[in-house]
């Protein structure tokens, strides 16, 4: 399953990183990876430097509600008469920032739990994995909504709960990949030499599970973007008058027959962003599968 070659893994120092470099290079050869990276860069660009080009303040009034595109408002106005283009250019920051934060949180927690579970070879393994199963017993949106109902629509809560729902899958993947490694000779050798468990986890095991993790990380990011955008669409993310793609879609969908741009632009942005990240993860997983088979994938 893992792309790591055991012969490389036991070599200390910088050469240990090579499987990852090979994997990335092979993924990059696939057209879909390039397309995915291009899409993500495009959307990240809009999100990061877009606000500099916004003609209006995102919450300033620029005309009548649902006005058609004009020379001052290129994409028309929204349900309250604010400039759609400006709000669109401002509105990606929250989704991108929150979903990145949630993914990083989920990865850090999931990798830690997965490694500890795989390496503990004890009751702790069972307990940790059962806890993961309970989290998986909820559809993630339900878990997120229960949290929102109790605490209220807070941004830190979205990061926390979306991060939490990604933990079980990351932990499973990490554990699965690490289980193959923990019984290898070089881990046993390191143990016999009296290296500390933390050092072994970090130095011997983690480098060998990076490629399945890379696939999982990009999958989890796609999913976090969808969930965060969905929650803010439901009105549980950023609160008005903030500019946010999910919120914009909800605010303007009553006016779809009159002035569709307030809905169409954020929908296109979220769609391209999620398609982009998922093309990247598909590219990486294809490349990893190709390496596993021992040959070039393309």
């Amino acid at each position, binding site marked *: 399953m893992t792309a790591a070659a055991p012969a490389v893994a036991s070599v200390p120092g910088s050469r240990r990183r090579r499987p990852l470099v090979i994997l990335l290079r092979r993924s990059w050869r696939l057209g879909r990876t390039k397309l995915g990276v291009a899409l993500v860069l495009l959307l990240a660009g809009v999100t990061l430097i877009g606000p500099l080009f916004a003609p209006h303040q995102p919450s300033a009034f620029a005309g009548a509600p649902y006005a058609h595109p004009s020379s001052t408002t290129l994409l028309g106005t929204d349900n309250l008469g604010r400039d759609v283009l400006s709000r669109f250019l401002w509105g990606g920051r929250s989704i991108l920032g929150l979903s990145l934060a949630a993914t990083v949180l989920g990865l850090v927690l999931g990798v830690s739990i997965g490694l500890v579970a795989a390496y503990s070879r004890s009751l702790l393994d069972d307990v940790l994995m059962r806890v993961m*199963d309970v989290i998986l017993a*909820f*559809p993630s949106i339900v878990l997120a909504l229960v*949290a929102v*109902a109790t605490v209220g629509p807070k941004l830190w809560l979205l990061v926390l709960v979306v991060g939490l729902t990604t933990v079980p899958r990351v932990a499973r993947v990490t554990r699965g990949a690490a289980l193959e490694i923990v019984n290898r000779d070089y881990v046993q050798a390191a143990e016999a030499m009296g290296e500390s468990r933390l050092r072994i986890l970090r130095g011997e095991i983690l480098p060998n599970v990076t490629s399945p993790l890379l696939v999982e990380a990009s999958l989890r990011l796609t999913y976090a973007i*969808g969930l965060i955008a969905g929650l803010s669409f*439901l009105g549980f993310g950023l609160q008005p008058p903030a500019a946010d793609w999910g919120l914009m879609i909800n605010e303007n969908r009553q006016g*779809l027959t009159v002035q569709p741009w307030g809905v169409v632009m954020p929908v296109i942005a979220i769609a391209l962003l999620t398609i982009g990240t998922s093309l990247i993860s598909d590219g990486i997983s294809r490349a990893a599968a190709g390496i596993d088979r021992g040959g070039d994938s393309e």
Partner: protein
Amino acid sequence: MRRLPLLHGIPGFIVRRSALGLVTLFLVSLVVFAATQALPGDPARAILGREATPQSLAALRQQLHLGQPVVQQYTHWLGGILHGNLGQSLAANEPVTKLIGNRIENSAFLMLLAAVFSVPLAILLGSVAAQRRDRPFDHATSIVLLALAALPEFVVAIVLVVLLGTTVFQVLPAVSLIPPQSAPWQHLKELVLPTIALTLAVSPYVARIMRASMVEVLESDYVEMARLKGLPERTVLWRHALPNGIAPAIQVIALNLAYLAGGIVVVEFVFGYPGIGGAFVDAVSNRDLPVVQALAVLIAAAYVVLNLIADLATIMVSPRLRTSLS
């Protein structure tokens, strides 16, 4: 693997999995309860806000049994659920069971429709893609399915509204209003868009696993044998390959039907469809905690049960697993 020595074979497996499902449900109820009621601070004030009068706060505390110790609150709540008493809605001021009675039927019918359309469609797409492996049809479906799998459900739903309900073509109702007194199957037109949205959300995963499974089957010796006997390709594909290719896909199919339980939340909200999912979002907006608790447990229960069925179905259709159990 630690196994109970008494329970062997398929009945033992069913008993074990059901017990595990019950344990999971119990833990789920604990999590929901802990998240909604056992919070530090005063839940009554959290629900009613700062302007609440002392009378209304006291009434709510009474209603939520906040005076009792936490363990007693939990057993009281769980006991109520087991007796079919889901509590009292704070927003509508009526029993939760009454509030959601009709809606369960509506949601179940929507999920059923989505399942009826998505499963055969996905099996068909996956099989045909496998048969035409690495040809244009395979590449095209692969990209389309990848994109569809990546899109959040609400984006799919909104795109459908834009394309078919409002802006581009106004051929289907963008809002699925179903009067409380009538059954959902009397309003099929209103159900078209929500069904398509859920179908598009679920099919990609099933189609992809189906393709992978069929690719393997089509390379096998018995398919080669069937071809060498001179059977037409159509018979080989549908009669010989499909029954064997479906087995590995069964679990993914069932898992994705379980996924519908979560998918209905957003899709029902987009279309204003009067089901469990829409009610759940409303209850969260109103911070109507008894309804949130009840619906969260209900959806999680549906999810656990469908997962259980997924496991059982997988065992039943895979001879290798079936024999390894006994």
